[in-house]
């Protein structure tokens, strides 16, 4: 027998220290970016005041040493936008991680099986509806409601198209997603064509922006995203097993078809909730999980929470830049930064693999 003694202890996954480091660094970065994002703008608010105002409003501590206008800007205007960015960015990146694992495709993003197209059609329909039904309800506009329902509805349609007797093959799912998205996009284009003076509103929604985010909307979308994240996270073993392919996952005791359905539904829920309050913001859900997988490995115990933290950070930072750059929709900015970055990443991967 060999007389080797294990020099290093076995590491069977991301260690506690590594997890704490990755998530802790991400959380610190997120807080720093968020405070900076609240502070900057046409009216500057000192970062110290930002922290004090938030502490005062949330915890009821400290005495008021700032002008009332600063509090309005921070609490009513900028903070909802930043919290919205956190919620949407975290939801999109986490959903992206799930879709990439379930669809076994590194190019998958949260929109790939119809959520974006469905939500867009819903939102655009609501925007140009000739009669306004009911108006705002609990601060949730018809647009948000239609977008949410459209996103979920589209995934349901895609899934039932792709579902066969023996299961739901991933390739069929992707193709069905493409076909349904194309059909829905044609619907969106048609509605835009007849939208008349509502066209500007339609375009602005489609580009994706956090400008319209308000506390009531966050109060609905936030819990939906947090709950779906929780239910996704407890399925980390399933997602890890799927890294070996569907048949091996089945050999490891995973009820593959059932879990695929559940995970798709949860990720679609998070995506639709996010898209409903922000419009379709691209690239966050594709780039963030992809990049984190390259940096920290594919173990979902770490990948899922890291996607949330870093996805949130990226979107908040991008939105602050978009706001400073004259209020361009953040969706344009994420694509402007995201696409070249992704191309660079692809080239680098190609270079490494030869």
């Amino acid at each position, binding site marked *: 027998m060999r007389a*080797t003694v*294990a020099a290093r202890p076995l*590491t*069977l996954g991301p260690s506690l220290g590594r997890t704490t480091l990755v998530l802790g660094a991400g959380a610190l970065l997120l807080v720093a970016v968020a405070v900076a994002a609240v502070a900057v703008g046409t009216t500057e608010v000192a970062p110290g005041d930002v922290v004090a105002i938030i502490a005062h409003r949330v915890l009821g501590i400290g005495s008021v040493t700032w002008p009332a206008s600063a509090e309005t800007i921070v609490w009513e205007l900028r903070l909802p936008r930043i919290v919205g960015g956190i919620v949407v960015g975290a939801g999109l990146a986490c959903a992206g991680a799930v879709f990439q694992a379930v669809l076994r495709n590194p190019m998958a993003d949260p929109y790939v099986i119809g959520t974006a197209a469905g939500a867009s059609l819903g939102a655009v329909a609501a925007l140009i509806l000739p009669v306004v039904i009911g108006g705002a309800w609990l601060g949730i506009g018809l647009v948000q409601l239609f977008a949410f329902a459209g996103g979920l509805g589209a995934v349901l349609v895609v899934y039932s198209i792709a579902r066969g007797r023996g299961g739901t093959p991933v390739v069929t799912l992707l193709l069905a997603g493409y076909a349904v998205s194309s059909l829905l996009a044609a619907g969106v284009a048609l509605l835009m064509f007849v939208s008349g003076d509502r066209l500007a509103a339609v375009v602005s929604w489609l580009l994706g922006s956090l400008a319209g985010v308000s506390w009531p909307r966050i109060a609905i979308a936030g819990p939906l995203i947090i709950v779906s994240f929780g239910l996704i996270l407890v399925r980390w073993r399933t997602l890890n*097993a799927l890294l070996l392919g569907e048949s091996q996952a089945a050999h*490891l*005791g995973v009820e593959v078809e059932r879990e695929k359905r559940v995970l798709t539904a949860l990720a679609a829920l998070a995506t639709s909730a996010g898209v409903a309050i922000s419009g379709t913001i691209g690239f966050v859900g594709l780039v963030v999980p992809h990049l984190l997988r390259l940096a920290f*490995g594919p173990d979902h115990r770490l990948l899922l929470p890291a996607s949330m933290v870093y996805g949130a950070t990226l979107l908040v930072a991008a939105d602050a830049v978009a706001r400073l750059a004259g209020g361009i929709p953040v969706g344009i900015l994420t694509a402007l930064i995201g696409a070249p970055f992704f191309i660079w990443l692809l080239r680098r991967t190609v270079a490494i693999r030869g």
Partner: protein
Amino acid sequence: MAERAGPLAELRGVVAGYPGNRVLEGAELELGAGEMVALIGANGSGKTTLLRLLAGTLRPEAGSVELFGRPLSAWSRREVARRVAVLPQTSELPVGMSVAEVVALGRIPHATSRFGVEPADEEAVAAALRDVDADELAHRPVTRLSGGERQRALLALALAQEPQLLLLDEPTLHLDLAHQLALVALLGRLRSRRRLTVVSVLHDLNLATSFADRTLLVRDGRLEEAGTRDSPLTAAAAAAAFGVPIEEATTAGGRVVLVPVVESARRVEPSAPHGPIQ
């Protein structure tokens, strides 16, 4: 040991296959604990289908499949995965993981805690790596494995499941001769060390007969006993199974081996104006 009283697996009149393609029609099998069984048969004869039935990932259209004395339908996927492990014909390995991390995936069916790694998991992974002589590979990224190392890593993953029944689908595919022999020897050692029952699809007839207590031939949707240690697979049976002429030859050491009769690709004499091929 209570589960070992009866046969480990029992197939009775099994009809199984895929939509529009019935592969097995009336397959019968009784698999005893501790047996080493080789499955041979032509491509498409149903060897993989049989493994899928034993792994519980395919339900029969008719007939009965019993695992460990209980009908297949009475087991959950997870319960089966704690007793049956599969080394598939092809498998992807997750980029960015080390061998130990991949082997640890074999602990998924045994998971008890929400997030943590239990001491039992660490022991099982270490034992699995040790049993396939892959201690030194533990920290190696899976992307930097040779074909033989890759196969050992996947075998360790299967062993980390702590199965009683190990199913292998052409495990020697893509392995060179030395690695093929090493793998078969390793399976023999694992059987005695872990009291495993092993069923393996093998294409090399001589490898099959030297590996197995029993060689089963899958043909016409059924399973036939084609050889045992005492009366090994004959040339006639093998020839009938594959539809090619096969001869028996005796080695200098007195071992009987099966040799397919290959029509020699005779060198054609070069004719002018072509010069001799160098």
